[in-house]
């Protein structure tokens, strides 16, 4: 394996390492979600499963800019955010299966993964349900004099909720270190967002005085570049910002959403998967730069595959919580 001589400087070596790590993370999220799909369709996973496949560059591009002690809040489609912020797949799978070893002792499930150790304030199954929580975490950071920031992930469907505008207004007035990340995957459940969203999306945030930007959500480097600026700005006391990442959900709103022709065409799905795939786009760039070759990608694929397999095995074998656990944790 060779590395192009003109790229083999210390800084490009660091860069190569960074983007290879991002590549591995995106592959991990995708394979995690493929396992979720498998577990769900084999009826091993109860409840609901909302897959993040296709949107990996957003979670990875954003979380690569964050420190371990920075905060995130996530959504019903949150597995990618949790993994990108540092959650480990075995305890994630265990939570998805309702096992005691899960991040929430099995009490949260797929839509409620939370983990103080990685700054994950929790995934939230109410659309826009976590916007107040993220803003409050930013208030704490400012008041307590830490230089932490909070990132609030939500889909474009949350643009319909009034509470988002209430908290953006406060965040701007109080100059809070929070970044609102809108993942526009084009579909609010089963409805194209243009049918539910009037006007220009970043303009909504700009009207409150937030720094408002847009990024190509399939390009992890573009997401990272923009997010880095906004996170750094927030950390230095520059105030809140809003970043819309334009992306695409490859699969249905949830695993059971199979027949989707009534709201989007198969041609459209195929186009995104072949032309705009975030993992493929990064791989192409890495090869182009001479940072990696296909053999390295294959190695990563097989390593991650075996990691995911082990994680699933752990979760499947893990015990359920005892019934006595049901009344624990109602009150602190």
């Amino acid at each position, binding site marked *: 394996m060779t590395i192009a001589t003109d790229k083999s400087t210390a800084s490009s070596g660091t860069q190569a390492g960074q983007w290879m790590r991002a590549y591995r993370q995106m592959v991990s999220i995708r394979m995690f979600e493929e396992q979720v799909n498998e577990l769900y369709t084999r009826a091993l996973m109860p409840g609901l499963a909302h897959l993040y496949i296709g949107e990996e560059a957003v979670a990875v591009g954003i979380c690569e800019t964050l420190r371990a002690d920075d905060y995130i809040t996530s959504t019903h489609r949150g597995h990618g955010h949790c993994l990108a912020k540092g959650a480990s797949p075995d305890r994630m799978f265990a939570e998805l299966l309702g096992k005691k070893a899960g991040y929430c002792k099995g009490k949260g499930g797929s839509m409620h993964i939370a983990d103080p150790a990685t700054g994950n304030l929790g995934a939230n199954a109410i659309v826009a349900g976590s916007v107040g929580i993220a803003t409050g975490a930013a208030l704490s950071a400012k008041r307590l004099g830490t230089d932490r920031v909070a990132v609030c992930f939500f889909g474009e469907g949350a643009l319909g909720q009034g*509470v988002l505008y209430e*908290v953006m207004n406060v965040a701007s007035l109080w100059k809070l270190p929070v970044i609102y990340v809108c993942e526009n995957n084009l579909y609010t459940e089963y409805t194209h967002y243009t049918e539910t969203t009037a006007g220009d999306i970043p303009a909504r945030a700009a009207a409150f005085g937030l720094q408002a930007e847009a990024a190509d959500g399939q390009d992890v480097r573009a997401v990272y570049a923009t997010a880095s600026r906004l996170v750094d700005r927030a950390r230095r006391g520059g105030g809140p910002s809003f970043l819309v990442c334009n992306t695409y959900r490859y699969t249905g709103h949830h695993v059971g959403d199979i027949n989707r022709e009534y709201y989007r065409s198969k041609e459209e799905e195929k186009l995104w998967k072949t032309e705009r795939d975030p993992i493929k786009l990064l791989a192409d760039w890495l090869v182009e730069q001479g940072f990696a070759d296909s053999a390295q990608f294959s190695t990563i694929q097989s390593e991650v595959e075996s990691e995911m397999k082990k994680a699933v095995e752990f979760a499947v074998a893990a015990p359920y919580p005892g019934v006595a656990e049901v009344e624990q944790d109602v009150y602190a």
Partner: protein
Amino acid sequence: MPDAITRELSFGQAVREALAEEMRRDSRVCIFGEDVAEAGTPFKVLSGLVEEFGTERVLDTPISEAGFTGIAVGAAMTGLRPVVDIMFGDFITLTMDQMVNQAAKVHYMSGGAWKVPMVMRTTLGATRRSGAQHSQSLHAWFSHVPGLKVVMPSTPYDAKGLLKTAIRDENPVVFFEDKMMYTKLKGPVPAEEYTIPFGVADVKRVGRDITLVGTSSMVQVALGAASLLEEIGVSAEVVDPRTMWPLDEKALIDSAKKTSRVIVIDEGYERYGVTAEIAAVIAEGAFYNLDAPVKRMGAMHIPIPFSPPLEDATVPTEKSVFEVARKLCGRT
């Protein structure tokens, strides 16, 4: 408590003193809400706090109840101890998602990983000629939700001791203050430090023949009715649960067993209200000792009207409680 150090404070002064003492004790305690700083709220309960603690800790918010309640949830999870002020209890409707789906569930959903030590202070009570949207007593709604604690002080002494406990509690606590008591009700409050534990009822008057269970201002109504009953030779015991949850079931049942007759009086709606829960607890726990069905007296099942004679007819009074008690005791 020795007389020498016992002062008289109004209900509002007792609330303010509790907040000031807790803010001096713990720099993490902060207040936010509408017009809480220089205005000290329309009821002037918070007057003077911003002068002592500054606008960093007493924060005026926009008129965004959902937004700032959500921010309080996140701030509480990450190191602050917010006390939010919801000016009129009617406005809790605007905070329901934040309180019911977020604050109440964070601890449980996260398997105990996160906690939400926040207080929501709000008001209840009719007869202020404020119309249907500024007069309701909606504490039953929050009492229905696991994960929340609900406090209803009836005297200045209880208000101060219970509010201090609420601020020190690790859970979301909703604290209902009857706005008619802020200036009108005065009572002894010791200058020394004290707190009152949750889930401990207080017998406000000892009696033999009938138990009057009252909440918030209805404790004062029950005490007035007890004086009227004494004139006709009926000895009434007045029991104040003080917290709707946790509920001191034993104290309620013990009093009912002793007197054999019970009226439960509350200013919330009678149908599906807290009177129904308390009556059921007593009926189940003291069934073989009761000489009459447990009676409930709450607000009439109508929107609160504006016109004074109409409004006065909607809530229990000393006279109406006296009449029901008299009949229940078989006096003519």
